[in-house]
């Protein structure tokens, strides 16, 4: 029960950064438990060449199981992981942050009658078993989660596990045939990875002005673009407003978007939900403007302004221009 199975998500020839973090973490923990870290990859055979799979060894994977199956959907992965865990008697399944990890981890929990902990920020070995640590109640408290029986499922928070390269370099790659459950094949991908809105680069910007639902409407972003222009930065957005079609997906911060750490992150009309916070919390200076004094964002901002952004942002733009011009 000391072995750990990690799911590694890939897309267009590269593994997801959060998956590589999970492999690194899985290898560290398996080492302490006296077992091995094995990795499951699943997709079209052509998109998973030997060298790509074997490269997971650099992050500490001892073995990589390659399964041919439909990409980007959770349930076929549940079938494959359940089989490997049962066949090899592994003790834990580990996932990096992101959407698929949540779905797969939850499905696997049901299938294996397992214990699960999600939003995990760190994992440690105690008495030969893994203990997960997760923030709860809007990050106001941190709890240890103990797995009491059966397999333990660990679903990491976005960016929780650091990517560490340094292994020998190659993992053994084993092709595995999996018979998928009938219901696992009843969801089919019609199109994947569609980019909505203009392509913008926010990851290289040292100043980001981010907008959320509090802007009220799509046009609210015009004032943020003016402020970004005055400060020499770029504009970013929350998932809610991207899903609503107000701004480009490529500018989205958080769980299924980008992770950034600019010198200045100015959040306008953003409440500060965990899914957003995980994508920007390492910014050097966080300024928040929100009319709700109880918004969670004020708990982790360095400067918080309680007020109407429609009044403040245009005046701030003028003041910044005046200051810089003078």
């Amino acid at each position, binding site marked *: 029960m000391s072995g750990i199975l990690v799911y590694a998500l890939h897309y267009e020839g590269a593994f997801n950064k959060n998956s590589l973090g999970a492999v690194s973490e899985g290898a560290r923990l398996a080492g302490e438990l006296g077992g091995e870290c094995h990795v499951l990859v699943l997709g079209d055979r052509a998109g998973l060449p030997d060298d790509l799979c074997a490269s997971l060894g650099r992050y500490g994977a001892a073995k990589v199981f390659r399964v041919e199956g439909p990409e980007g959907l959770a349930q076929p992965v549940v079938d494959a992981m359940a089989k490997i865990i049962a066949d090899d008697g592994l003790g834990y399944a580990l996932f990096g942050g992101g959407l698929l990890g949540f779905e797969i981890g*939850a499905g696997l929990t049901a299938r294996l009658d397992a214990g699960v902990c999600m939003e995990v920020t760190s994992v440690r070995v105690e008495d030969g078993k893994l203990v997960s640590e997760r923030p709860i109640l809007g990050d106001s408290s941190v709890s240890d989660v103990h797995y009491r029986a059966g397999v333990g499922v660990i679903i990491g928070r976005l960016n929780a596990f650091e990517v560490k390269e340094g292994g020998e370099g190659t993992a053994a790659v084993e092709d595995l045939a999996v018979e998928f459950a009938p219901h696992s094949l009843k969801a089919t991908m019609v199109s994947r990875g569609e980019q909505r809105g203009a392509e913008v680069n926010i990851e290289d910007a040292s100043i980001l002005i981010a907008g959320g639902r509090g802007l009220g409407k799509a046009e609210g972003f015009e004032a943020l673009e003016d402020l970004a222009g005055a400060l020499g930065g770029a504009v970013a957005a929350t998932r809610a407003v991207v899903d609503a079609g107000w701004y480009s997906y490529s500018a989205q911060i958080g769980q299924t978007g980008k992770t950034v750490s600019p010198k200045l992150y100015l959040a306008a009309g953003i409440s500060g939900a965990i899914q957003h916070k995980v994508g920007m919390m390492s910014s050097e200076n966080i300024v928040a403007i929100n009319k709700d004094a109880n918004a969670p964002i004020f708990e982790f901002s360095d400067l918080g302004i309680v007020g109407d952004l429609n009044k403040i942002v245009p005046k701030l733009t003028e003041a910044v221009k005046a200051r810089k011009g003078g």
Partner: protein
Amino acid sequence: MKICVLVKEVPDAAVEKRINPSTGRLDRSGEKNLNPFDTHAIEAAMQLKEGGAVQVDEVVAVTMGPETAVRALHKAVSLGADRSLHLTDEALSGSDVNGTGYALAKALASEQPDLVLLGQQSDDGECYTIGAVVADHLQMPSLTQVIKIDVDERSGDEASGRGRWALRCERQAEYGYDTVLVELPAVISVGDAVNEPRYPSLKAIMGAKKKPLDTKGTGDLGIEPGRVGYDNARAHCADFKAPAAKEPGKIIEDEDTTETVEQIVTWLDERKLLV
């Protein structure tokens, strides 16, 4: 077609959430609100019912929780559900995600729904996961964080009506937006961008308590007692502690905007962010 909507009562945002240190469980006293994400799930059910692309005979709200959870069902019914099912039993108290999902799946199985809808996350504890747990038990396809649902007619078994329909769902995943065709019966959790929930009419609020409500316990649904409840949870929370404290930030209440803006500019300038 029958749609079941999973709903949940959560602490009011205004009530401070607490963990009872002796039990390691969320102190659920003071709870009174329907999980905000669940109103989107009910609205999605109502839009399917009213949309006309598929005939929806019944929308059933389902919850698991103590006696007070009835309030969430009343809210769901006032928003349009036709009736509700309340799974309540002392044996279920303290169930973890695994036990909760298992018990809810048993309740849903008794209804044989063509579609199960739920909100993508709940505000109080476990997020994202219940839909996928339930789907695995029910052996149904599943998708979470869906922001657009269109009915897609499929060939299938005319006689039973089963497997005749699919939903074309859109959602944002790691690499952009995915469109996924999901055959029914299925479990779909929706994100808040999927719709704008309606407000219940006064008449609907007043009438909510008159709509049929079934109350069932573990014995009624064949729920194995050894798989639910705190003592049978596969994972236990313990050792609560405060997170690493961050220096509290400066707060400005905007009264005179010109003055506020001056303060912001000074603050930015001190940190050399205006170069």
